[in-house]
């Protein structure tokens, strides 16, 4: 089964790209905003100082020629800032900014000074500028982050889709493809994964076809062998030939059955099946009606493929009698068929890995084909059923087939 790997959100490319873009845009906007603000404030304040200085020069000129103090100017204003007054007393023209006011002062002949105080016209302008920079900054950060998220989302979505397809291929869904569009690196990665999946499935198909062809080719010589064996007498050598030809034939048929299941060419033939009746007929066909205890509860017929189901039940019974030993109990309840034997139980590696072809766990080879449980599990998958293998506390090995809809 493909396992979908969950991503730790902190390690997700999407989140990391989005956070990086957000941080970068905040730093950039703040830096640019601060620079623009500082430069602007400096330049507008300088221009205001010049205006104030011009005013005080005009006021001093008027005073010197007419003795009048123009409106807005003051002679020896005691409220003027001390540093300005100091500079004026030293005979200098000066300006001084105190928060919202701009002072300008210039010496008058005779040691006094004339001062002009104006409201700093730039306070309002700078406040508007601050608000604008902040607003534009916030909008820019949001836009950049949003764009970053979109971009990262697109990238991350393509990458996650590619990962999902790779997981599906690994899980056995060999026809899964990414079919990437575009020419970027992600699309290239997608195409590379697709090509890998194609190569992989072609290889698997070649090997599957080879084993199916081998089994097919073996049928022709086997046919003559089976017939010739039947024509032999009753001595021990003839019996061994017949018995071994039979084993070879069972192996070839099992290999072909696996090939057919893997090829998937044969459709399911679903019909309502009376499970207890099918189990009874299977037992009778194998001459095992008397050696097996059948426990059944009547239920509704189950919609399934009776031939495949019969194969599964027969293989489970074979397995139980070959490796487990009597008494064997078959329980049929609702959608579940359980076969339990009284042997040593399933080997640990079988419980762990599931059925593996030719890994019988039996000390002596040659009794079965080593494919019975593999076929049972494969047919169960075709039926949409689950085949559970376990060693219950009551002893022995227990195989439960749970058909869908139960």
């Amino acid at each position, binding site marked *: 089964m493909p396992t979908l790997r969950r991503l730790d959100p902190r390690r997700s490319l999407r989140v990391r790209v989005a956070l990086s873009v957000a941080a970068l845009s905040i730093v950039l906007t703040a830096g640019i905003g601060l620079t623009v603000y500082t430069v602007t404030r400096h330049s507008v304040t300088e221009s205001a100082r010049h205006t104030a200085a011009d005013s005080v020069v005009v006021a001093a000129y008027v005073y010197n020629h007419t003795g009048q103090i123009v409106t807005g100017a003051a002679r020896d204003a005691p409220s003027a800032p001390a540093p300005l007054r100091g500079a004026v007393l030293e005979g200098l023209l000066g300006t001084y900014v105190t928060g919202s006011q701009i002072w300008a002062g210039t010496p008058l002949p005779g040691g006094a000074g004339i001062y002009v105080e104006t409201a700093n016209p730039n306070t309002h302008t700078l406040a508007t500028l601050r608000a604008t920079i902040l607003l534009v900054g916030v909008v820019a950060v949001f836009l950049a982050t949003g764009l970053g998220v979109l971009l990262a989302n697109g990238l991350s979505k393509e990458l996650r889709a590619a990962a999902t397809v790779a997981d599906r291929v690994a899980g056995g869904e060999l026809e899964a493809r990414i079919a990437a569009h575009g020419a970027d690196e992600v699309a290239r990665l997608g195409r590379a994964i697709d090509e890998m999946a194609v190569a992989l499935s072609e290889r698997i198909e070649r090997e599957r076809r080879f084993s199916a062809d081998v089994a097919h080719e073996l049928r022709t010589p086997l*046919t003559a062998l089976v017939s010739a064996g039947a024509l032999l007498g009753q001595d021990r050598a003839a019996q061994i030939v017949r018995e071994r030809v039979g084993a070879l034939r069972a192996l070839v048929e099992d290999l072909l059955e696996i090939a057919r299941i893997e090829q998937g060419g044969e459709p399911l033939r679903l019909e309502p099946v009376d499970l207890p009746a099918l189990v009874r007929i299977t037992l009778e066909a194998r001459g095992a009606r008397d050696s097996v205890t059948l426990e059944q509860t009547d239920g509704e017929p189950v919609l399934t493929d009776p031939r495949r189901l019969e194969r599964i039940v027969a293989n489970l019974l074979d397995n139980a009698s070959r490796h487990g030993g009597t008494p064997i109990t078959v329980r049929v309840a609702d959608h579940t068929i359980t076969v339990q034997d009284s042997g040593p139980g399933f080997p640990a590696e079988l419980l762990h890995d599931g059925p593996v072809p030719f890994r019988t766990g039996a000390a002596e080879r040659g009794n079965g084909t080593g494919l019975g449980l593999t076929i049972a599990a494969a047919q169960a998958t075709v039926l949409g059923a689950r085949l559970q293998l376990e060693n219950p506390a009551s002893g022995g090995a227990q195989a439960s087939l749970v058909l869908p809809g139960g």
Partner: protein
Amino acid sequence: MSTPQNAHVLLVEDDAAIRETTAMLLTQFGFSVRTAADGQAGLDAFRSDPPDVALLDVMLPRIDGISLTRAIRDAGTTPIVLVSARDHPLDVVAGLEAGADDYVTKPFDGPVLAARLRAVLRRAGRIHDDSDGRGRLAFGELVVDPAGMTATVGGESVRLTATEAKLLSELARNAGIVLSRDQLLESVWGYEWGGDTRLVDVHVQRLRAKIGAQRIETVRGAGYKLVR
């Protein structure tokens, strides 16, 4: 058991070992066997002395088994059993659609093969039985004579193979009742368990082509019934 004593089997098989061992086995089971090694020789042998039943390999040189089946079917109602090493669905269906009555897959057991041959011969043998007086069954234009294993549509006699005739009789005797594929496999082909339901499906198709498609109704998941 009603073994047709010395029933003539024409065995067409290109593999010499299979041809020889199969002939020996069938001889042991009381059949009289003639063999041919390819499709053309098989067709010549069939024309020069028609057998009671033809046993044909599907993969044959010169004329393949499917074409040979069609040629024999065109010439008459001789029962045909196919032998196939390939049980691929398409191979089997193609053989049945060409007119084969039944098939066995390689490798086969002597008793099983003998039983399949006896079953088709029994069906063929009944055609020549005289009607035992039981009534004909009429469904509008379609008249079926189960005892004589014949049918007419609108007064015109329909040429049916023994298998088709037996299948139509089973459906006619149970007209209006749904017969499952497994029931038909048992009553027509003699399979007690494990027959291939495609045998039924393909023969129903062939029967429909001869007596009218609407006369046999498919009941999903259940089987077929003859419409009254």
